[in-house]
């Protein structure tokens, strides 16, 4: 669905290509800045996102994740590479085509909501329809429908700044959904919300995805959020991707020390599944558990009965076994 291929973004300086060359030769950000006056925002990033997948890009501030998503929506012009949407390179499009794809296919939710303070909630919601010239009655009807799905019907005639942060972001989401886009970009949408609201919103997003899966690229600096929402996660550092993988792969096998630092505080038993901790091979008797069972759910079974558990795949074949000692190091980690 989305193919990001060798995307670069260089800020400042007159010669982005020189900065890219230097970066290719392995020079550090500081060296490049000193030599060319340019800062590397995004460094040779490639990945692809499947239809209906939630792809999370996780990184700390300054890692280039916001720049990346702005390159992917072409809010800023990448310095190199390509962003394919259904096989068409977004970067080759002229303004007219770009506008068309934005009006029909992709949409975005912003960190600070990006709502228009001079428009009522309903008119914010209907904005994407309004710029397409859809008549007022129709666009208001569709916007009202969307507001109903996010539970804000009564607030339609208020101005966004009169709503709480969580409600404002619901407006932001409703505004994006009105277009029924196939692709949704989320730029740290929940970072500005307090933790309890954040959790609610994450759950709602999961529910929304379950009802009608869309292709989502989700930016966050919160590793736990990435694990909750992502089918796959890309971890960014200094403009480049350190590792891409499923939540489980990343927690079980962090590719770099940087990635490992994020995983240390994560309760691994809630991320890892039986398949990640099992010893592959024959069953040793005992109860059978599915390969996708989280380790946390195995613990009571293992302690109820000393025998190792047999792990079976989707088809019911035994693919390995888990004994108490296989998970003991995880428990030690968590007890620490």
């Amino acid at each position, binding site marked *: 669905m989305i193919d990001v291929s060798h995307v670069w973004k260089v800020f400042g300086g007159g010669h982005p290509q020189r900065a890219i060359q230097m970066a290719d030769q392995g020079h550090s950000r500081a060296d490049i800045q000193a030599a060319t006056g340019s800062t590397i925002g995004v460094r040779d990033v490639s990945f692809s996102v499947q239809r209906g997948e939630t792809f999370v890009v996780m990184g700390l501030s300054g890692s280039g994740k916001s720049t990346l998503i702005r390159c992917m*929506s072409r809010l800023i012009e990448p310095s190199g590479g390509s962003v394919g949407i259904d096989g068409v390179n977004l970067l080759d499009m002229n303004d007219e085509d770009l506008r*068309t794809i934005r009006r029909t296919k992709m949409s*975005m939710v912003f960190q600070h909501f*990006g709502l*228009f*303070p001079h*428009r*009522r909630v309903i008119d914010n919601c209907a904005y*994407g329809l309004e710029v397409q010239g859809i008549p007022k009655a129709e666009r208001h009807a569709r916007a009202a429908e969307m507001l109903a799905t996010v539970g804000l019907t009564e607030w339609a005639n208020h101005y966004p700044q009169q709503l709480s942060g969580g409600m404002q972001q619901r407006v932001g989401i409703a*505004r994006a959904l009105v277009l029924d886009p196939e692709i949704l970009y989320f730029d740290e949408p929940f970072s500005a919300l307090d933790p309890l609201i954040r959790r609610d919103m994450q759950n709602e997003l999961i529910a929304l995805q379950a009802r009608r899966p869309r292709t989502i690229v989700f930016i966050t600096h919160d590793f736990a959020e990435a694990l909750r929402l992502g089918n796959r996660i890309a971890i960014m550092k200094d403009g480049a991707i350190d590792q891409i993988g499923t939540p489980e792969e990343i927690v079980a096998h962090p590719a770099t020390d940087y990635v490992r630092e994020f995983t240390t505080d994560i309760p691994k038993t809630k991320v890892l599944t039986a398949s990640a901790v099992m010893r592959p091979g024959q069953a040793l008797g005992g109860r059978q558990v599915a390969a996708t069972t989280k380790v946390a759910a195995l613990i009571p079974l293992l302690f109820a009965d000393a025998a190792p558990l047999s792990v079976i795949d989707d088809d019911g074949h035994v693919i390995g076994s888990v004994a108490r000692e296989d998970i003991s190091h995880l428990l030690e980690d968590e007890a620490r």
Partner: protein
Amino acid sequence: MTTTIEAPPAGEHRPARWRLVPAIGLGMLVVLGLALSAVDGWPANWNMNLRNPIDDFQSWIIDHKTDNPFWKFFFTPISSFIEGSFNTLSDQLKLLPWYALALIAFATIARTRKWGSAVVVGLLMLFPGAVGLWNPTMETLALLMVAVAICIVVGVPLGVLAALNHRFGSLIRPLLDAMQTVPSTVYLVPSILFFSIGRVPAAVAMVLFALPPVVRLTTLGINGVPPETVDAGHVFGSSRRQLLFNVQLPQAIPSIATGVNQTINLGIGIVVIAALIGAGGLGQEALDSLRTRSPGRGLVIGAALVALAIVLDRIARSFIERTTPDPGARQPRWVAPTVIIAIVALVIVGRAAGWLDFPLHWGVKWADPFDHFLTWARDTFRHQIAWVNDHFVADVYLRLADFFTNALAWPVIILAGAALGLWLKGWGLAGFCATSGVIIGLTGFWTPALQTTVQVLLASIIATLIAVPLGIWAGRRPRVERVLLPVLDALQTVPSLIYAIIFVYLIGVSMVPGGIIASVLYAIAPGIRVTALGIKAVPESAIEAATVFGATPRQVMFGIRIPLSLPALIVALNQVLLITVSMVIIAGLTGGGALGYEVVDAFTGNHVGKGFEVAIALALMAMMLDRLTQAFAVRFQPPAATR
């Protein structure tokens, strides 16, 4: 994880040591200059003789107004457009029933549900009529409306362009800076060259003087639109036009309205001196009361102008507030049309019935007691007043002026200015000061310029000595500030000429009433304001930290508050200086001599060439003082955050 934190280079906010050299050099130069006092004033034949070509150009314009295409198709149409709109507007305003404008003003403010303010504004709108100044007030209002409309029509697109096109923006920013630094007097000169005398050049001068805030605040408003909303506009597929009209301009409206409000205030500020080139209206009335020595009448005229200023300010503010949506204040749909229809009906009825004259009249009654009081004060304290005035003029002003014009040789003054610029900022400023000094000399007004500088410095020092302690006091005590603010507002809205009229009556013709007292009264308001702001902006955490470490209130004041607000104090000085420079013409009208006298003479005698020379000297003086104080403030700014 351990990271080493490297200190960035300390930066250049402290001057390199070698810059102290010019400071020492300056001291030596002063000594040298005193020794060189044999050198006379600026050589008389070093004159660029600007006035001849300009006077010739003026005669050429008069001869060719009808056949030169540039006049035929550019200046003359502009001129007749302004003239026509002014005449229509002022005629229509004068034909309104007496209560019409008060009703409109009331209804405009009432939209924001500030009933008290609406009533006060309505009554204030009745004031000029009640004191018998209705017609001149309407003329002034019409002139202001024409000028402000032109400012909006020209200024908003310029501001949008400057925001969207960075090259254009960086091109006009220094121009706007310069336009706002130059005293309003300067704008009168080119206006009379191109548009002769009358309402038209007055409106043109008003537009030139009042344009910058609209442009600036439009740019500011557009640039201040949260970038995420612009991104959102893009993401939802807006075209450039849609982005501008749906997203950027609507969010910039409060800022634009603020700009328009400032523009109106600047326009009102130039009403009196624009009367020197034929603006008529209240400004002309004020000049007349100066000529006839009627301070009471001057005061009433000033009050009428203040009333008009407050009404316009509150109306503009109601639009600023209005654009910040608050559905709590939304009224049912039928209210606005009903009110408008009711007002229109009342106006039509009143006009048909001929209710034009004011039913009440208390003009003269207000003026007389004030005149009596001033006459009494003048006669009673005649000797004391004369003693202070004579000593100030003879022992302070004339001695200083003599020191600058005779004791110091002119090269020393120019070099000293350059050295100051070098010390405060660098070679650029040094070059600017030296060049400006030489150009002022070449205009032929070296000595008056120095005399004016002395007056400006004296008034500024006095104003700063009053403003800074009051500003610190107001910044520390909210209650003091609350009491002081309305007084400051009043001080600043009363046209400065009114102070001069009152004190000329008391003291007699001298540099004191206009050059010192009126300037000080006019300049302390912003001085106090900026100082108070600076004191208040000192971070609370710094003060808490000092207190925790056991600093006494005195130590907090002199060790924390004052050093941290020093840049603001220097900005206050900058404001005071620029305002006193703008008062030079008022000083000239009331016996201050120097450049002020020369410029008044140029206007009254229609010597445009001479006017240009003086205007150039005045503009350069203002720009030099501005840049030097700005550089001074920057030097005391703590370094900006680098990470």
